[in-house]
């Protein structure tokens, strides 16, 4: 029997499982928001969901369209500005998890949400960092969520918007480990439409931890959809979504299919 859920749903469920009760999670607009709300409405009721524009300890009844949406501040007890969220909480090291999307990622978890091609004359210009660079820089750990395509999982991102484990040196002429430029934290996981990738504790390179076996994904699929060489030796099948996870996602988190595009 074919599974009754999509790769998009599996991705959101897999990401939500990485968030823990009691953590302060700084969430970006889009799919991260869906996964974070799913976590909050299932296993992580005490998670403190924070959004860069205004929402602090958010528990929305209706899915916010962006991090400034009035839905995000419904019945919250504090409405900070980005000065408080980003400068006071994030910059001073008080955010446990940063949760981001992006256009390109590389083996060290560097993220690009600025442009494809040369910065001055790109093939494709995107909206820009928003708070992504900040969040990836100073959250205690960062979770990345994005579609798994070869043009997205690249050997070297065209522009480092958000620093990963090996990023630009302070002379911007070479690449160094993030600790060398004074950054703590770092990428914890990349959750994609094929599986969940983590980073080797010593080499800081991405490896496959789980793949969506039940949805017909093989480790070879991941190899083919990843431009850089990726360690598949530790890969194991992902546990499918529970009935509760799917029900909450479909009925409570995004019933309109705004993000999930049913």
């Amino acid at each position, binding site marked *: 029997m074919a599974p009754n859920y999509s790769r998009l749903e599996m991705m959101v469920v897999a990401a939500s499982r990485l968030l823990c009760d009691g953590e302060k999670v700084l969430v970006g607009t889009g799919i991260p928001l869906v996964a974070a709300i799913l976590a909050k409405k299932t296993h992580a009721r005490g998670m403190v969901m924070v959004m860069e524009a205004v929402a602090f300890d958010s528990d929305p009844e209706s899915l916010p369209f962006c991090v400034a949406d009035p839905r995000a501040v419904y019945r919250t007890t504090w409405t900070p500005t980005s000065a408080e969220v980003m400068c006071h909480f994030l910059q001073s090291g008080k955010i446990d998890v940063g949760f981001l999307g992006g256009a390109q990622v590389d083996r060290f978890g560097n993220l690009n949400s600025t442009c494809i091609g040369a910065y001055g004359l790109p093939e494709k*210009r995107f909206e820009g960092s928003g708070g992504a660079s900040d969040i990836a820089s100073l959250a205690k750990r960062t979770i990345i969520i994005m579609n798994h395509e070869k043009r997205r999982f690249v050997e070297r991102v065209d522009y480092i918007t958000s620093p990963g484990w090996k990023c630009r040196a302070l002379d911007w002429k070479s690449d160094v480990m993030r600790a060398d430029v004074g950054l703590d934290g770092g990428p914890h996981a990349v959750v994609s439409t094929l599986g969940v990738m983590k980073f080797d504790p010593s080499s800081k390179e991405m490896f496959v931890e789980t793949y969506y076996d039940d949805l017909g994904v093989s480790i070879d699929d991941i190899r083919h959809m990843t431009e850089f060489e990726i360690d598949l030796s530790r890969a194991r099948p992902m546990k499918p979504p529970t009935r509760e996870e799917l029900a909450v996602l479909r009925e409570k988190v995004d019933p309109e299919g705004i993000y999930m595009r049913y």
Partner: protein
Amino acid sequence: MTQTRKRIPIERVSEFVQDGDSVWLGGWTVVRKPFAMAYELIRAGKKNLHLVNNPGGPETDLLVGCGCAAKTETNYIGHELFGHPYNFRRRFEQPESNQGFRHDDWTVATGSLRIMAGAMGIPFIPTKFLRGSDILNPELDGFRDLRGIDPKVPKRKFMMLKDPFWEGEEVVLIPAIRPDVCLIHAQEAGEDGTVRITGGLFLDYYAAVAAKITIVSAEKIVSREALEDTREENAIPGEAVDAVVEAPFGAHPTAVHGCYDNDPWWFRDYLKASKNEGTMQKWVDEWIVGPGSFKGYLEKVGARRLGKITADPELSYSATIKRRLDKLEEVN
């Protein structure tokens, strides 16, 4: 109390903005953006504006698309999930439409710090962000050829300094943002300029204080007494505001907490039109030039659409509106 009455009609807003000015646009992407005032700038044919905001939404894409802006300096320009900022993109992707346009990339946190420094009157502020990112890469500095030449652009993008006080960390000094003009849309304002904003102030207070001239449009002009009753909710003192405009639905098509939601029909039409120069020009003629005034524009939007997006007073947003552009039902 201050006695000054600062109320002006919306038609006078463009007198406060000069060609070449750096202009801060308040709000956040698709929320509480000063659209009524942006439309005035377009109708007045403003040129060479240097747009700063944190972050920019459809108003910024529109001003770029209408040829009003020569420079943008921000962390983001876009429409959130509605779609992509095609006018802004075209300036990069199609060299023939670039027209000397320059863009300088920043981040939410560092833009916040920079406008806070501007409000404080200090020339720069340190940060722990940006290290390791190409945003500081000197070879990828969008304003490189303007530094030291354009007086509205800081002489350098950043400077590294080793902390002399505590652990000796290398931090990044980044320049203050000092806008000529700040445009904000709010829920309420008094005749004296006091501003009440609920459900998210964003960086509007800092920008109002940092700018040389600040103009606030509001859903409603309210009495001094009403503002005394909401003191702890008032966000900007009248002393930081030069003029106030009463403009109901003045942030349309963006959302205003407690007043109205995003207008998805606007986004659908705008996104379709903005995909190329020709259809964009037609959209501008139809929606901005043609109606001739913000009043005319709202009449063209129509009472039924405005009714649909009106917020539930308990929730502060519309509980009934659908936001998927591909499944939008017509209203007429």
